């Protein structure tokens, strides 16, 4: 069902490339101001957005997702489930790496072997932990055998963590590992992929420069080069954008929208994301072990006020955990809504007529602190006395994983675009703590629904299972789902063809600069 004709998009890409070459909107250095520096250009060795943003242009995955989170061919032209446990991918044949080496099934196997290698301890390995075996069928066909039936595998394959790098640097990197270097140290210095841009230089903490890949199989990009520059302060990024020092400011804050819109030559680029922000309740602790209390609190929080008050209207109010673009999202599930009276009634029913006192944790992220401040005031109205505690990120992760919290604010991004990734880690009983379930909420019913859904090969049936799961999650309210944020970029009018992927990655292949 997912397979599409391989030749078409490739042909498209080539023609567009050619046209652009003739248009004259060629060349130029696109400068992007980013909040923070990439951590690692080893696609197996990082999972932060700045790294992905850069890596996405150097490496390619077998599959990609489009702006609607639909799977599209990448380095693989076709994919199909051979049986419950086996997925087969047909690879593109005319691809070479930046170092001139050839792309084929052996390279793909080497890549996935590396991700799954325990010595590498790749932070991406969880994406493929169900993969048991990788078989090279022939030069351009490869087979993934999973431990148990796992239907979202193509979605996981599409993740940029599955970016393919040259077999040679993998070997070099292993050699360095033998010499006592950290894994990825070679790849980091000299990343080699098949993507539209070639790594040029990286000044740690300052900037990364990529140049165009003239030999790109999809046609050379219009830009000569791309520079990712680190500008941590929002106001400064904006100033840089206004003065033309950079072309893209990633991100801008909602309060800056009016300023950007009011300035000539720059515009706002808005893109709904597949992320969720939520306030979790520790379901193992009193009084949050009581469904009524959780519901009451959810009911008492006006999400619109948060979105309008804090995000200046940017973002989509969340009903359940999944964003609309994610596969498995059910628009018919209705949320608890906002109803203070109902909330009071439920609290009374649960035995807390006079409310109670509790704490709300947030990490030191200004948006989250603002949400906490707002929620505190809102909950005051139903008599719940909330004390806000800011906890520094490292401690926050550790202490929430250990279940020391009452209520907490956190987010989640369904990077694969598939509901499995959006729900299984967060709500399955197997994932208490660090793997993602920090509300410690689980029911047997939900557990089995989520298990079944990830194994069922039929997408329609899966959709149905996820609908049920969402119903349960809304009703049980292990968390108050706040909103799905929207990415905001400040972009110069000179920039054409830029789009933003719902996972937060900027797509630069087709960008051109008018100067």
């Amino acid at each position, binding site marked *: 069902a997912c397979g599409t004709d391989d030749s078409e998009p490739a042909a498209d890409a080539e023609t567009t490339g050619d046209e652009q070459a003739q248009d004259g909107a060629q060349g130029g250095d696109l400068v992007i101001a980013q909040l923070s520096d990439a951590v690692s250009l080893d696609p197996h060795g990082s999972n932060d957005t700045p790294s992905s943003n850069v890596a996405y242009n150097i490496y390619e995955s077998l599959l990609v997702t489009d702006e609607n989170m639909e799977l599209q061919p990448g380095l693989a032209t076709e994919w199909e489930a051979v049986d419950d446990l086996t997925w087969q991918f047909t690879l593109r044949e005319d691809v070479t790496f930046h170092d001139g080496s050839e792309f084929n099934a052996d390279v793909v196997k080497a890549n996935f072997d590396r991700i799954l290698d325990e010595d590498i301890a790749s932070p991406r390995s969880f994406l493929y932990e169900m993969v048991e075996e990788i078989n090279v069928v022939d030069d351009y066909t490869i087979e993934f055998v999973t431990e148990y039936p796992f239907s979202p595998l193509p979605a996981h394959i599409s993740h940029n963590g599955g970016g393919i790098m040259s077999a040679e640097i993998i070997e070099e990197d292993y050699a360095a590992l033998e010499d006592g270097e950290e894994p990825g140290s070679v790849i980091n210095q000299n990343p080699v992929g098949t993507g539209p841009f070639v790594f040029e230089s990286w000044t740690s903490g300052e900037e990364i420069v990529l140049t165009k890949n003239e030999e790109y199989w999809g046609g050379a990009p219009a830009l000569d080069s791309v520079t990712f520059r680190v500008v941590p302060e929002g106001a400064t990024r904006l*100033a840089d954008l206004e*003065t033309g020092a950079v072309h893209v400011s990633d991100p801008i804050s909602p309060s800056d929208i009016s300023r950007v819109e009011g300035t000539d030559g720059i515009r706002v680029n808005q893109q709904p994301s597949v992320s969720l922000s939520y306030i979790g309740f520790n379901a193992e602790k009193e009084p949050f072990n009581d469904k009524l209390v959780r519901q009451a609190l959810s009911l008492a929080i006006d999400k619109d006020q948060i979105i309008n008050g804090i995000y200046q209207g940017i973002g989509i109010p969340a009903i359940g955990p999944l964003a609309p673009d994610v596969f498995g999202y059910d628009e018919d599930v209705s949320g608890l809504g906002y109803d203070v009276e109902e909330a009071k009634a439920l609290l009374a029913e649960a035995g807390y007529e006079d409310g109670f006192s509790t704490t709300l944790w947030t990490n030191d992220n200004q948006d989250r602190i603002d949400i906490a401040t707002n929620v505190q005031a809102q909950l005051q109205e139903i008599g719940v006395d909330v004390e806000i505690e800011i906890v520094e990120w490292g401690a926050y*992760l*550790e202490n929430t994983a250990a279940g020391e919290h009452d209520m907490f604010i956190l987010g989640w991004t369904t990077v694969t675009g598939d509901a499995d990734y959006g729900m299984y880690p967060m709500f399955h009983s197997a994932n208490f703590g660090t793997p993602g379930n920090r509300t410690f909420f689980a029911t047997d019913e939900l557990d089995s629904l989520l298990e079944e859904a990830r194994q069922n090969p039929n997408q329609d049936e899966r959709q149905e299972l996820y609908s049920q799961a969402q119903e349960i999650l809304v009703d049980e309210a292990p968390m108050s789902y706040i909103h799905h944020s929207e990415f905001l970029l400040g972009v110069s009018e000179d920039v054409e063809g830029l789009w933003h992927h719902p996972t937060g990655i900027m797509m630069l292949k087709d960008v051109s600069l008018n100067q």
Partner: protein
Amino acid sequence: MLKFLGKRFVQMIPVLIGVTILTFSMMLLIPGDPAQIMAGESASPEQLELVRERLGLNDPIPVQYWDYLKGVLTGDLGDSIRSGRPVAEEVFGRLAPTVELAFYSTLLAVFIGLIAGVISAVRRYSVTDSVIMFGALFGLSMPNFWLGLMLIQWLVIGAGWFQASGWGTHQQMILPVITLGTAGSAIIARMTRSSMLEVIDMDYIQTARAKGVSERVVVYRHALKNAMIPVVTVVGLQFGSLLGGAVLTETVFAINGLGRLIINAIRARDFPIVQGGVLVFAFLFVFVNIIVDVLYRFLNKRISLN
């Protein structure tokens, strides 16, 4: 003098060891695990275990420290947990902007601070004095980011004279230097003023006046030198603290300096980077303090060096 310097450089060793021990124990004390921070909101326990094992975080603490120390002694500061890059590369890569920024800002602070302080002291209780004093307090109380952003608004966006981010060209360097220099000059000005007031009534100032020395020379040559000890101390501290990281300014002006590196490393629990950075700080600090002590002696020959 040489003996003194030699002694002080030897004393640097326990200071550096002390700093590493302190940093090390603090890192152990605070919650948060680099593996987990790297993994983010979700990470399987097995995964975390693997990373910890690889990084040696499961070894007994003394062993970890000893391993670290062994590395340092052989000139290896280790690798960053996050990026895998050698710590030395990361840390020394940021040294230049930090040192330059600190140096120029201190220079500016000393220049403005001394002049303002002296004028303030000489024109004690005058309008000039009050204006300078108010300006100084204003410069000090407004945090760096406020001043920095205001300067960006006026001089980058408004006038278009400078560049908002980066470090290297004049257009990039002037604003951060002003931003940082302002707070420093405020402290120096206040300190200079008060020290000058202590000195200006002394008999030897009268002697100088009796020679017919012009008031400027009285002030700058006779009084100032005698008033310099607290000022030099403050300058040293100022310079030191700037070396130790002007995080806010580095952030506002997107300067790739040590301060930001360390803060980010602390947040990421990137122990090797923190250790490496703190070591470099300590080294710079001790160095600055040695200079200050030598200056004491230079200013007042009665102060003995040891």
